[in-house]
């Protein structure tokens, strides 16, 4: 039976089918749904870890203990988990370990578009790349088998267009192999698993030897193959780009590489001998192209296709036409109209507590170092209330550094509750230890909202619905040694303002927890207020809070009651008292 599955659903199904029993992750677009789906299968353990490094260590531990394991992450998540990837490549494991890593070309929801194929080479870790959901399902199994055969973690690479596209998957009702009846004893092997220099020096040659064996494996595995076609043009491609290329070059000879590291050099040479011209179609970095060039093969790639952004069949075709590889297809006439179509950027939702906090911060004119989450949207007009954002957990260290550089501005760091638990704890320790006086604001909505409301250590529930101890950020920072800690609902804007001023004037490091649960999560909703058109002078001050239900009409502001959440922030900011609560 065939079933449509997204790439992420298929990764999860594949992990279940192939006997993964422990999986750990931190949510990150476009990878989040893999673990969320996996967690629903029977007989598996899944966890949202506080961050990707912890998650990968958990998966490594399970694999050390002889249980097939998986960790899933987005491309930048592997930056966080890189340290663990590198040691696991040295130690190897006792059972299969698969790392499913999703890149985000075009940065649909990311801060950069790094190409994580480079991690495979950097960490000396094999990588395979499926191109649709059926392959996604199968390749998890392939990766686990490879992992066990070669005693190494294996990375399965995805991209947004694989993770979030749906394609048919062969679906069987056969479950995974049964679990062992007795829990196995842990096999202690410190020479292999304790990476002190003496042991690591013994492991490095093993890693290098393994890469050679993997390269031999790459030559004969059915993962890599030549699809015969015209000898005039040879296309080298992998992953989703392969499908775009197939549409654009229906007659070419193809080298489809599902194993992108290490590469099968003999197969590549065999392919090169069959065709007159070789073109590599790959998104982001010239990863395959450079390898072929190092082999001394004449090849085109980034001279034809961009290094930036995401590919599409339209883009591959237009580049191919420009380079003279194909004839331009007949096209309908160019569009004549130049209709102005205003963009629709994502915004904080109506009723979002972050908005009230950033309204206060903007009114106080403070410099805000920000972080990764829904609240990053506060950087945009009309709020304009965030001034730096780099990566998860960066806000606090950056604020501390700005402070130590000696600027006059008042600086606060703002990050969400999930981000705080991901990577904000160490920087608040740093501020305290190194005589900083940074004020850190945890904008606590009790959710990992941006990626889809996943549970985290502060929510009191695990991914599999079990009750959990709540890690309370207030107790945590007080335990670390913070003495100045306040909690405030940001909708109480007068109190919020008072607390903020008090913290800014204080010489000691401090924490404010601005707490209002995510209204999408709790479905909190109140009666929308009304604008009295007689009193409203259309000054537009309410519009500066950037709330979508507020619409400026000819002579007054109107509230779209379908969209309005009834939070009442506009009532509080209207200087004319023209917006009336009902």
């Amino acid at each position: 039976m065939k079933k449509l599955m997204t790439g992420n659903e298929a990764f999860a199904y594949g992990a279940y089918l192939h006997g993964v029993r422990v999986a750990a992750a931190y949510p990150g677009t476009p990878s989040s749904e893999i673990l969320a789906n996996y967690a629903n299968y029977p007989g598996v353990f899944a966890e949202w870890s506080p961050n990707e490094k912890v998650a990968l260590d958990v998966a490594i531990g399970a694999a050390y203990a002889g249980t097939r394991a998986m960790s899933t992450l987005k491309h930048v998540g592997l930056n966080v988990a890189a340290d663990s990837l590198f040691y696991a490549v040295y130690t190897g494991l006792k059972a299969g370990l698969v790392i499913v890593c999703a890149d985000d070309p075009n940065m649909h929801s990311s801060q950069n578009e790094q190409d994580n194929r480079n991690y495979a080479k950097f960490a000396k870790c094999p990588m395979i790349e499926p191109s649709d959901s059926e392959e996604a399902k199968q390749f998890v199994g392939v990766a686990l088998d490879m992992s066990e055969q070669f005693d190494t973690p294996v990375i399965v690479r995805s991209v947004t267009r694989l993770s979030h596209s749906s394609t048919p998957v062969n679906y069987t009702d056969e479950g995974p192999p049964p679990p062992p009846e007795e829990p196995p004893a842990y096999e202690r092997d410190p020479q292999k698993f304790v990476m002190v220099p003496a042991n690591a020096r013994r492991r490095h040659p093993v890693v290098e030897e393994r890469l050679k064996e993997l390269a031999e494996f790459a030559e004969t595995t059915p993962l890599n193959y030549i699809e015969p076609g015209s000898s005039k043009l040879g296309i080298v491609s992998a992953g989703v780009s392969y499908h775009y290329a197939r549409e654009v070059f229906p007659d070419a000879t193809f080298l489809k590489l599902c194993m992108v590291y290490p590469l099968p050099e003999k197969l590549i040479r065999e392919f090169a001998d069959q065709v007159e011209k070789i073109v590599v179609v790959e998104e982001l970095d010239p990863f395959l192209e450079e390898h072929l060039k190092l082999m001394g093969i004449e090849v085109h790639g980034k001279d034809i296709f961009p290094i930036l952004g995401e590919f599409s069949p339209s883009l591959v075709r237009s580049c191919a036409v420009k380079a003279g590889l194909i004839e331009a297809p007949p096209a309908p006439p160019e569009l004549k109209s130049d209709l102005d179509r205003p963009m629709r950027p994502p915004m904080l939702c109506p009723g979002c507590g972050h908005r009230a906090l950033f309204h206060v911060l903007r009114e106080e004119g403070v410099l805000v170092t920000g972080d990764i989450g829904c609240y990053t949207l506060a950087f945009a007009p009309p709020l304009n209330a965030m001034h730096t954002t780099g990566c998860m957990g960066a806000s606090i260290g950056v604020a501390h550094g700005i402070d130590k550089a000696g600027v006059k501005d008042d600086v606060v760091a703002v990050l969400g509750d999930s981000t705080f638990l991901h990577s904000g704890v160490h920087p608040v320790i740093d501020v305290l230890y190194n005589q900083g006086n940074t004020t850190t604001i945890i904008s606590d909505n009790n959710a990992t909202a941006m990626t889809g409301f996943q549970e985290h250590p502060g929510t009191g529930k695990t991914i599999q619905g079990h009750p959990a101890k709540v890690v309370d950020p207030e107790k945590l920072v007080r335990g670390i040694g913070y003495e100045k800690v306040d909690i405030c609902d940001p909708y109480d804007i007068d109190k919020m303002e008072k607390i903020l001023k008090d913290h800014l004037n204080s010489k000691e490091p401090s924490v404010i927890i601005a707490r209002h649960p995510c209204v999408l999560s709790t479905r909190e909703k109140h009666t929308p207020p009304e604008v009295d058109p007689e009193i409203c002078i259309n000054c537009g001050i309410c519009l500066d809070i950037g709330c979508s239900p507020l619409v400026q009409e000819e002579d007054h502001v109107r509230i779209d009651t379908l969209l309005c959440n009834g939070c009442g922030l506009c009532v509080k900011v209207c200087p004319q008292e023209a917006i009336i609560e009902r």
Partner: protein
Amino acid sequence: MKNIDFLMAGVGGQGTILASNILAEVGLQLGYDVKKAEVHGMAQRGGQVDSHIRWGEKVYSPLVEENNADYLIGFEMLEAARFPHFLKEKSLALVNDYRINPPLVNLGKANYPSKKEIEALLLERADKVLWVEGTGIAKDLGNPAMIGVVLLGALSNLVGGDKEAWLDVIGRMVPQKFVELNKKAFNAGREVSG
């Protein structure tokens, strides 16, 4: 079996993703190879959501190619107006007659194009723009979240395929207690294009 490419465009929260899932499943039910692509992530925050759905004998790319879409299904007028370059000649645009202002329009800093301008733009490629009072019909039936099913109803007449196949997929994919209501919404949509 000829290829049919669909593009759906709407605003986060309008139900485009459920509708695109239904449309993809219908294709599979009718015996096509099917692929579907969309980007979520920030969609819930009122941003743009567009889905590509492709039916065919053998489909490679999950993304529709520009100049190639057979149908554009707009859940919101301005969102439909973003994609005429995807349409092929003699294609069809099915647009919900409904407007959601983007922030800059609310702030008085940009203009929302008129329905007439949007229609003219789409007609540069499409043979016809079929306006559907999807939001109104869904609201009258008691649930504005059913816009997508109303639009699918209108689309089903144009695309063809056994009506029961469409209803069967809808029955499987919407919440159990809303199945009957959604079937009504689907039939109401069929009347628009019938």
